[in-house]
């Protein structure tokens, strides 16, 4: 059975693409055949984060318009055997995607026996974001500890509950997961930033993980290597924990407390 998971947020720049790349990579690393789709038409970026930007030939819009085959369009990851990337197109035409067109793509991916389809949503609550979440079985709602992000997450939850395929077809609701990213325990401790408890309280959905604000995310983006592959980094470990929880394992949450930095950590971050 193929599972479709959307990574969504409403607000822009909260870490959806970073999360999509790491979640897809993490699932592939556990042996699941996984594809990660960039739904950000016109603002392709997932290819850069996955480090396959120079191998893009065809894109999602080509595939939807049947100008290319699935085999031609999917980019096979260089590091992991069962990981594939489906890049967004750089077209300016926002109407290039339709539900019917994406339904055909989803159908092809299911026939190709993918275990997981990860959908990297664009920002906003307009058509693009609605398209990315339409086919979702589960949703990873990516939220920063900050007022506008929390509010937008709540709005996207409303859309998941009323405009996803599952809601329209009266099926079981989309399974919701809260992923708090760019968490800064020191600023939470100072009372400058919303805490994990505050956010869980407000949004009232199960917590999948807490990804700390970490310089290794930027380094990983620079290198085109999802941060989950950096086993040394806190962000990488936090994404790994999130994969365990996504697969049903109970794991205590880490990285909520201010870390006492040793001398080495203080030097090397």
């Amino acid at each position: 059975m193929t599972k479709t998971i959307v990574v969504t947020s409403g607000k822009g720049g909260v870490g959806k693409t970073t999360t999509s790349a790491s979640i897809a990579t993490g699932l592939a690393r556990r042996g699941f055949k996984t594809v990660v789709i960039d739904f950000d038409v016109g603002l392709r970026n997932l290819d850069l984060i996955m480090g396959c930007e120079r191998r893009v030939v065809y894109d999602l819009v080509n595939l939807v318009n049947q100008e290319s085959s699935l085999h031609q369009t999917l980019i096979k990851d260089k590091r992991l055997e069962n990981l594939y990337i489906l890049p967004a197109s750089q077209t300016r035409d926002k109407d290039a995607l339709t539900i019917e067109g994406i339904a055909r793509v989803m159908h092809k991916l299911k026939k190709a026996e993918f275990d997981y389809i990860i959908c990297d949503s664009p920002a906003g609550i307009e058509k693009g974001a609605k398209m990315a979440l339409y086919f979702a079985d589960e949703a990873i709602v990516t939220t920063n500890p900050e007022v506008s992000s929390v509010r937008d997450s709540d709005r996207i939850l409303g859309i998941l509950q009323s405009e996803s395929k599952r809601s329209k077809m009266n099926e079981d609701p989309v399974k919701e997961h809260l992923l708090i990213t760019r968490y800064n325990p020191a600023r939470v401790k100072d009372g400058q930033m919303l805490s994990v408890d505050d956010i869980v309280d407000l949004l009232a959905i199960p917590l999948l993980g807490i990804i700390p604000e970490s310089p290794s995310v930027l380094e990983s983006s620079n290198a085109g290597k999802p941060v989950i592959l950096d086993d040394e980094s806190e962000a990488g470990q936090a994404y790994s924990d999130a994969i365990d929880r996504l697969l049903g394992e109970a794991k205590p949450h880490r990285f909520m407390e201010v870390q006492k930095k040793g001398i080495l950590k203080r030097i090397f971050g």
Partner: protein
Amino acid sequence: MGIFRFFRSRNEDASAKVAKDRLQVLIAHERSDRSGPDFLPMLRKDILDVIKKYVDVGDDSVSVNVEQQDACDVLELNITLPEENAGNITPSAAARKRAAERRAALSGR
């Protein structure tokens, strides 16, 4: 990190607390808008416009909710008047103008 900060527990007056309180109100509001029937936001706006014809109230003074109680839906309407007017409702400028016009018309100028 200073030693004082180390011993200080989470400051309840800190901005995160304010943020949470504001969000709590806002999110509850937005949720009720989308969980109720489609017309609720419009109904709320219309009622607000009517109230404003008579009393000076803020844009957030009207809340409209539908609640299920046993077998029936209850439409709950809440109108909050400004605090400084407690026990002494001031008519809005528009209402005062209309009243003045009415009086002028009655007294035949």
